[in-house]
């Protein structure tokens, strides 16, 4: 499992465009929004939590097809399936590698981009916490979508159509946490619900994703 995880990390770092691209996309979203809605500070700081979350979600979505599609094309997925490690473990390792290369950089960079969008300072710790708790669920659900569409040629658009509805609860609770934090209220409830979703997803989705992979490798 560790080997699969490290292999995916190495591929992402050495093949280029893996880690940086998601961040660059996030930056572009954070740059485009002020052009779209105007640079007035109060509007921006009001919508900043939502923009940050939607941006993180889209950046996550961009790199999903990397999880299984390339391995599916060159046949290494078949080798992974015949390896002693159960497919559930492969899914978990690959989703973890995806999170480290996509979700984690977003969490680290979020304060900087928050500055760009005039995110209110009290909301900042909540943004970091909610992103850190929520992005693993995004990677995991993305792995499920990628597993469903691994056999489909040009599955990118289909992948987005399948995965985005699954992201809705995570997005709602994540953005709600930051919004309550920005308003100076106690965001513990949405944060706990967000963490609950992530835990449930990490526990249950590997089985669904592995089932989908088995069908696709048949």
């Amino acid at each position, binding site marked *: 499992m560790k080997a699969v995880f490290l292999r995916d990390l190495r591929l992402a770092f050495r093949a280029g465009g893996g880690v940086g691209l998601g961040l660059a996309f996030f930056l572009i979203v954070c740059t485009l929004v002020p052009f779209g809605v105007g640079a007035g500070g109060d509007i921006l700081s009001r919508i900043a939590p939502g923009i940050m979350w939607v941006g993180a979600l889209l950046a996550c979505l961009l790199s999903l097809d990397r999880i299984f599609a390339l391995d599916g094309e060159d046949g290494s997925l078949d080798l992974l399936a015949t390896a002693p490690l159960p497919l559930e473990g492969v899914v978990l390792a690959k989703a973890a590698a995806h999170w480290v290369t996509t979700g984690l950089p977003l969490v680290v960079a979020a304060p900087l981009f928050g500055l760009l969008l005039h995110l209110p300072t009290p909301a900042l710790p909540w943004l970091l916490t909610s992103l850190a708790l929520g992005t693993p669920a995004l990677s995991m659900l993305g792995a499920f979508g990628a597993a469903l569409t691994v056999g489909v040629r040009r599955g990118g658009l*289909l992948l987005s*159509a399948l995965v985005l*509805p*699954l992201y809705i609860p995570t997005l709602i609770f994540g953005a709600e946490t930051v919004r309550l934090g920005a308003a100076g209220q106690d965001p513990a409830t949405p944060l706990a619900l967000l963490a609950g979703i992530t835990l449930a997803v990490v526990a249950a989705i590997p089985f669904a994703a592995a089932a989908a992979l088995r*069908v696709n490798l048949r």
Partner: protein
Amino acid sequence: MSLWEYANPVKFMRLSGAVLPWLSAAAAVALVAGLGWGFATPPDYRQGATVKIMFVHVPAAMMAINAWMMMLVASLIWIVRRHHVSALAARAAAPVGAVMTVIALVTGAIWGQPMWGSWWEWDPRLTSFLVLFLFYVGYIALWSAVEDPDSAADLTSVLCLVGSVFALLSRYAALFWNQGLHQGASLSVRAGERMAPVYKQPLYLCMLAFFLLFLALVLARTRTEIRRRRTAALIAREARP
């Protein structure tokens, strides 16, 4: 003699072929009678004539959810017992359910414009119906994208199971996210009925009519799918030297 016998496509075709004309006729009669009766009801003292859109809106919304439930059950049967008719029925129900969702959303918008002063509100009920529609779209798209029919049935079944959980989750998340404008249920087993009989009776008839309509459409579509499968098998046999 059990229900599982109808997992055999030949038996299913025989039974559904015999039942379908009667079912369609019953659906047509109930639909005409229910909607006609609903149209003849007096205007509501507060909502005026717009109350009559309820006779389309409520049954369509009900069937939109029930269709997904039926797909969930059919997917489970396919996963557990590998009956092809079950998978095909789930596939056949999806577009019908999607159309029901659209009908519920559109009639709701037409009603909401004069009543709430807005075509669309980000109300939990409306939002969860929109999300349900997105799930229908994803489900249908996955069916049409995967070429091998058995793989497609497997993958969509898994998607249906996961999607059901998330559709429910989105419903509660949306409730948490925004307080609603949509009124609560007027017909409820637990809270009793809060509707005048003059509206209730045609509404029940309309619900029955939409249920029959759904059943007839799904049966017809399942028959078409089975025939399409048979044609494909015949063509494949011809192509073999």
